[in-house]
């Protein structure tokens, strides 16, 4: 590494960096969540914060709806609470406060009050997470006007998303993914980044546009390496902000490639892929498209079943060959892909 204004950190460390830097600057930020003060149960990103910020990192009772509501009230009274949920599935218990209250306060009270509350939730995957520890419920949340939804896939965007969320002060949901926490990438050391590109192009390519949400962005990047072995250059894009969606980088790419494979990190029915493809069609862009996502069933626990449940780099590469009408390339694909860690390099 030759640039002293940058360093390589993991996604989890990037979150830690953003939160701790903002907490240093803004005394109104608090973190409330079950096990928020426990460096192991909070899955890493909050490590060391309890020692540094003491009472501003709070463990709370097992009462998701009420704690979410308490955070709403704190936010209405001038504080900046972040309500942490160690699995996205647990957010369902707090839906009432997130959707009926937080997302509506400014509007239904005629703009006379604001509610700068943040919710933070992690999607689980693998090691037998099973039916109730693996859900990725962003389709439910992006349907709600008034709630900003972030799902950064790389460390730089994770840091930038936290900085933006804590500066903007609108009700927001930050969706993280357990498997992203150890992904490495470059972040700046001389400034705090904010979200400049709400939809990020991760890799340039001219044959097909691959859009991956959250951890599926990584799977798409891995697929792009497989595809490269048969000469297919995939452009890989990930929306950092799911709502409101900046569709322009996707349309620009699709206009160039004429092909789009959208890989949702959720079930496909009524999800972001469907939304994006409809919007592109409404904008009279002509292109071929396909979608992938979770299998239309409950997430099973056994590894053989779980493997069939998620799209993976190989299944994504197969789908691309079908979409591009080059099925004869499938046997040529280097399907013995190595699960190497992908590092993200700038420029951002």
């Amino acid at each position: 590494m030759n640039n002293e204004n940058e360093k390589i950190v993991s996604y989890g460390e990037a979150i830690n960096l953003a939160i701790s830097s903002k907490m240093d600057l803004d005394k109104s930020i608090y973190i409330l969540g079950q096990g928020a003060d426990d460096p192991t149960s909070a899955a890493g990103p909050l490590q060391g914060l309890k020692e540094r910020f003491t009472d501003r990192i709070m463990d709370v009772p097992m009462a998701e709806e009420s704690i979410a509501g308490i955070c709403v009230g704190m936010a209405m009274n001038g504080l900046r609470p972040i309500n942490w949920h160690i699995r996205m599935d647990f957010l369902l218990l707090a839906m009432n406060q997130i959707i009926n209250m937080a997302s509506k306060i400014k509007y239904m009270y005629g703009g006379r009050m604001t509610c700068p509350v943040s919710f933070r939730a992690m999607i689980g995957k693998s090691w037998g997470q099973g039916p109730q520890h693996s859900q990725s419920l962003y389709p439910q949340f992006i349907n709600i006007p008034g709630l900003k939804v972030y799902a950064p896939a790389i460390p730089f965007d994770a840091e930038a998303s936290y900085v933006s969320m804590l500066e903007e002060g609108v009700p927001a949901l930050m969706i993280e993914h357990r498997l992203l926490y150890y992904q490495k990438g470059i972040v700046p050391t001389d400034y705090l980044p904010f979200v400049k590109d709400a939809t990020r192009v991760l890799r340039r390519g001219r044959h097909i546009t691959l859009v991956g949400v959250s951890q599926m962005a990584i799977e798409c990047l891995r697929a792009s390496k497989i595809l490269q072995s048969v000469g297919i250059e995939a452009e890989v894009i990930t929306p950092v902000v799911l709502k409101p969606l900046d569709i322009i980088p996707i349309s620009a790419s699709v206009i160039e490639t004429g092909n789009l494979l959208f890989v949702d990190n959720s079930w496909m029915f009524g999800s972001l892929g469907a939304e994006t493809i409809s919007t592109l069609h409404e904008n009279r862009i002509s292109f071929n498209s396909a979608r992938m996502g979770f299998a239309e069933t409950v997430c099973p626990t056994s590894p053989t079943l779980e493997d069939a449940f998620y799209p993976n780099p190989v299944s994504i590469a197969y789908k691309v060959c079908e979409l591009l009408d080059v099925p004869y390339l499938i046997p040529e694909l280097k399907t013995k892909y190595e699960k190497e860690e992908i590092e993200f390099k700038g420029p951002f």
Partner: protein
Amino acid sequence: MLEMSAQILETLLLIRKVDEKLIELYPTDKIKSPVHLSIGQEGAAIAALPLSKEDAVFGSYRSHALYVAKGGDLKRFFAEMMGKATGCCGGKGGSMHICDPEAGVMGTSAIVASTIPVAVGWAYANKLKKKNNVALVFLGDGATDEGTFYESINFAVSRSAPVIFLCENNRYAIHSHIKDRSRVSNISERIKGMDILSIQGSSLDPEDLYNGIQGYVEGVREEIFGIGPLFVEVDTYRLYEHVGIKTDWHKGYRKESEARKWIENDPLRLFDSKELPMWLEVMKQRVENKIEEAVKFAEESPFPEKVELYKDLW
């Protein structure tokens, strides 16, 4: 009854007259919102009187009384009822979401129990900011069926948040009697063991309620109680239907005889007399003038422009 302070009496009268004005206006179709009237329960709202502007109140969809008692702007109230741009929510909330942050009316909600944890959060923020202000949340007995009621008390007690949980126990959640919803109809009894300071009163004795709340608020100001929460159960009765402007004895879920005690002991019967003492006559006219002025303001106000549709979403 006459021992009641003029301030309390005038507030009770204003609350009653505001709802009666809505009843009067309703057939004209000027009111563009469902209304949940407070008639019969006015005394409970007197709990908001000892609070300052910096103290916050929260409520449910039946919140006209607390809005008036906390000093919410009356003109903007009627404008909101009529869906006007000058309404307290700019026409975007209606009767179930009235607010007036300048007066400390920090929000009312159409989802039962949903403002309870919000009030706790508000009060807890004050504690964290070392401000000696209280939050007062009005909730019905129906809200005590919800888990968040108990969760909120538990949090407020364990963190010593200065919040008053005021339960208006009118016995009915829409048409379901509390006895059909719980083995323990007395809510103070039900929460025994949660280590919360608890008092009981009646909406027929607002002076007593006022004094109880005032004592607590003074305690918070001086940190006498270590700023822990307070639970107040107010025995009360809704004389009109759950939503709407009529009585509902014909529906058969409750008997009119049940209301007798509440009608006979209604503090506002004082004003039924043909010959009012001069000070009461002055009070009555002052209240009526205030309402007329507010209704006139609302009627003359414009409806919101269509461009308002997307404003204030973020």
